[in-house]
């Protein structure tokens, strides 16, 4: 729907984050990070472990405040998590509320956004169907497998139809097979809803497979090393895409950026 519109959804300029600023334990996590995300784009952020990826995501989601620089979401300066932003955390078992059923979990952000009660049930069903879990509404999250729980978490952040979906290592806690399924799921959802996605990952292959552009971060304190465009087209498949010439070339390039010492 919003694919036809153009413009910048997220603009990060000169972002800097210092923990415990002004004390002797001050820790510079992010030095200087700038990048823009256009409407409908899929952008992955990769970097070596300890690169401050999660810190960056907390700053661009509004969960944490930047020490310097600016984060603009839809042209507004970010002060808290905006209404039109969906967030998916790495650890589904910690982010889903085990005392509520899956349907109630998904209805939570709808209630908070004052969606009328009659409409909530329909939206919950719609979200569950879009992640292929139409039948689990009455079950509890802990009755599902890990991959299914993460799909419920994704359904929850899709239920209020956000402009931008931010995901923090969303597939890091599931097995390899489930991981491929979830990657294809998120590509399909993105195609169907025309949603903008920013995904943080340490997995270079995953980043290439999913994204239109990859933002490569350096080691702590983070700066942007390079923004690599990924021109693999809109149709991707786990077997063919991952074995294509372009994919392998990109993979080598990104590896050399993330692990320069191994060259």
């Amino acid at each position, binding site marked *: 729907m919003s694919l036809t519109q153009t413009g910048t959804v997220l603009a990060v300029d000169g972002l800097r984050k210092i923990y415990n600023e002004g004390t002797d334990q001050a820790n510079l996590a992010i030095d200087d990070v700038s990048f823009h995300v256009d409407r409908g784009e899929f952008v992955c952020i990769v970097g070596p472990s300890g690169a401050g990826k999660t810190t960056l995501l907390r700053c661009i989601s509004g969960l944490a405040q930047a020490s310097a620089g600016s984060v603009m979401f839809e042209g507004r300066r970010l002060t808290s998590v905006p209404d039109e932003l969906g*967030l998916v955390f790495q650890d589904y078992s910690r*982010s889903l509320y085990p005392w509520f059923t899956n349907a109630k979990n998904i209805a*939570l952000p709808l209630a*908070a956004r004052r969606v009328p009660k009659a409409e909530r049930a329909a939206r919950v069903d719609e979200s569950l169907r879009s992640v292929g879990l139409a039948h689990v509404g009455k079950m509890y999250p802990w009755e599902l497998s890990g991959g299914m729980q993460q799909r419920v978490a994704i359904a929850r952040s899709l239920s209020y139809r956000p402009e931008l979906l931010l995901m923090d290592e969303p597939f890091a806690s599931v097995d390899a097979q489930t991981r491929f399924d979830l990657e294809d799921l998120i590509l399909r959802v993105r195609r169907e809803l025309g949603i903008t996605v920013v995904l943080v990952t340490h997995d270079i292959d995953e980043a290439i497979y999913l994204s239109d552009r990859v933002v490569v971060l350096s080691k702590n304190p983070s700066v942007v090393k390079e923004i690599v465009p990924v021109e693999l087209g809109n149709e991707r498949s786990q077997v063919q895409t991952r074995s294509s010439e372009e994919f392998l070339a990109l993979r080598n390039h990104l590896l050399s950026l993330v692990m320069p010492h191994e060259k």
Partner: protein
Amino acid sequence: MSRLTTSAVRVSRPSSAIRLKGIGRVLTPLWLPVLLLVAWWALSARSTSPFFPPLPDILVETWNQWVVFGAWTNAVSSVQNLLIGYVAGVLIGVIGGSLLWRLRLLRTATNPIIYFLYVLPAPALLPAMIAIFGIGDMRKIALIALGAIWPTLLNTLDGMRGIDAVKFDTARALRLGGWRRYFSLVLPGAAPQIAAGMRASLTVGIILVVVSEMVASNSGIGYFILQAQAEFAIKKMWTGILVLAILGTVLNYLFMFAERLVLRWYYRSRALHGA
């Protein structure tokens, strides 16, 4: 993990085996109490000691005293005071614990006072309660409530402080704020520990209901026991203790039943993941 496998095995068994296992689950916790009762019955059967009358005599006397002679009104009075005092104490405990969780300034300021009151034995306050509320039911209820507050309050605070930070990040991402956050995250998240506190409060409440009836009182089970002892009616005294024990057990089981019902998600998820 082991629980998962047993449940899988059980499903494949014929239904009679399941029933047998169900009976076994009921009988396992019962064998020791039954054995002790039988031992009491057998050992006291020929007793001539005035302090330890035979169990059958106590049972007959219990029926006579509590049903025929109408001592049940004492039990009613005890239960009434206990319930009012307990509910008041638990409510204050949960609300107070929530406030202390929310308001850090209040927490640091009241911390020493709370622990001071917590370690102070509630019965020691009985004379003060009598001075303030007189000798009616009010001071009994007040004493029970005062004792019941602390376990619930401290567990509420502790339970709320122990909730995973990721769940609060999630609440911010979903834009749950204010009361919605309290009722969808904070209260249910702390619920298992609040329940543990409420259970400790119930035990304290049962102790205090008896204590409050033993001083300057003319009703209740505690009064009945003390009165019987003063009249040297030892058998009658034993009936009071028996009724008290039964009452305490019933209340505890009712509590456990309600807890399992309300915290079904908690017990079932734990059983499923072998914790």
